[in-house]
């Protein structure tokens, strides 16, 4: 597999995101609004010093990280793929000299990288202004956080791509995107898993929907080496499983494509 062509695709997508930056700024405004609303809301709720072992400052940093993780990849690019499948445009792309899944991955990552840079900058400024510098006890946290974040992006890409590819089999894939995004929001983005009833916490720590946001955010705000190792192992397993499912759905779906020339 020639990696150079995928790096070129990544590069083009990155440049496109920088040049056509209207959507990027829209995203930053939404991110800021979200953090502000939750800063105020948790400010009212936090009458006591800690809730479920999270201080107010940790809670705000937690939301800054989870929201950044889920917004970095977004659903727009991948939703377009399901549209391409529906209207038949995918046939043109399948005939080109690249691996289609790798093409979509490189293309998505280029734009996501720009978004990541913007969100980490905005989140860093917002978190520091609102609740002060995060309390990082050990520098060992940094590589764990970076790895967990990268795995989270791969997991999200695989899940979203599988949903987009479901358009090969169902008439309308939009509700699946809705439901997916709500799972991500509810099971870890808005509130940490530790806020859930105890009977729900254990299964949630193993679910991909919560691992993508809660995983890196928990490592960032309350680092614990054994828990972080456990989280990364779970994320790695899911990343492999989800990528395999995505590949399988793609292979099966492509068989449904009929090209009639034109």
């Amino acid at each position: 597999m020639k990696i150079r062509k995928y790096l070129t695709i990544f590069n083009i997508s990155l440049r496109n995101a920088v040049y056509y930056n209207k959507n990027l700024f829209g995203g930053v405004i939404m991110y800021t609004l979200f953090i502000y609303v939750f800063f105020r809301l948790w400010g009212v709720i936090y009458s006591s010093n800690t809730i479920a072992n999270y201080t107010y400052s940790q809670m705000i940093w937690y939301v800054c990280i989870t929201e950044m993780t889920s917004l970095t990849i977004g659903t727009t690019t991948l939703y377009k793929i399901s549209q391409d499948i529906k209207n038949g445009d995918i046939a043109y792309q399948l005939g080109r000299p690249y691996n289609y899944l790798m093409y979509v991955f490189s293309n998505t990552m280029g734009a996501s990288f720009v978004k990541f840079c913007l969100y980490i900058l905005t989140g860093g400024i917002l978190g520091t202004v609102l609740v002060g510098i995060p309390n990082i006890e050990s520098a060992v946290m940094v590589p764990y956080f970076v790895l967990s974040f990268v795995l989270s992006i791969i997991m999200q890409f695989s899940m979203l791509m599988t949903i987009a590819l479901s358009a090969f089999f169902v008439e309308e894939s939009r509700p699946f995107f809705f439901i997916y995004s709500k799972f991500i929001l509810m099971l870890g983005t808005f509130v940490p898993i530790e806020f859930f009833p105890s009977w729900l916490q254990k299964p949630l720590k193993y679910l991909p929907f919560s691992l993508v946001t809660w995983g890196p955010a928990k490592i960032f705000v309350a680092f614990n080496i054994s828990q972080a190792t456990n989280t990364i192992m779970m994320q790695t397993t899911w990343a492999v499983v989800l990528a395999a499912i995505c590949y399988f759905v793609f292979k099966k779906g492509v068989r449904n494509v009929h090209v009639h020339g034109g």
Partner: protein
Amino acid sequence: MFMYTEAKKILRLFTRYFKLNLSSQMEYRASFLVQVFGMAINNATFIFFWWLAFGVAGEYIAGYTFKDIMFLWAVTSSAFGLAHILFYNVHRISNLIITGELDTFLLQPVPVLPNILGAGTSVSAWGDLVYGVVLLAIVWGLSAKVWIIFVLAVMLGAVIFTCVNILAHTLTFYIGNAEMIASTVFEFMISFSIYPDKIFSGIVRILIYSLLPAAFISHIPLRLVKDFNIGTLAIWLAFAIGFLVLSFVFFYRGLRKYESGNLIVTRM
């Protein structure tokens, strides 16, 4: 007499558009139902968030109970739904101005702004409308007072949502493409109407009672449900009517600055 004839004409136009839009959606019945139920489930997930938040906070958050928050959600969701069923095309105003497609609407023998507003609909908005009604029925029961205020709130809320969009998009006449401003303003409106108003302070609190009138969508109706006051009702009605007049005046003043292009468009 002139006002009455104009109002009747506009009402007839909206009724025609509504029937036409609905029948075109019904062509794809399965897709319609999937999108409606998808949106209702989408909204319902937020009940879970508030259940968790009240679980850690206790009975009140900024003076609001769980039931109160559900009222905010029911009104906002249904008002948003009604606005997007009837006037979804409001989101295209900037685009119509920039591309020159506005010419088509200017040539037709009906009032321009109502003609633009009614010319499009959103399928998933039915899900928002129905969700609000079902949520209110489940959480608040069948009290006549609550339902009268709810129905009024949904209608006025739909008007306010639409007028805020008209005002924001009209800026395109003055400063160029204001699409992003409009979508940001609209997102702010939605976000501020589904959270307790007391969590906001300072400039934001002033904004939600003035330029971004989220308080007039959901918070004031809730205040009326809990403690009815004829003065508050009068202020609410006056504000909605005032906002409606302001948005129309602003649009028609802006329209004077519009320069037509040579674009030829066919409306099918």
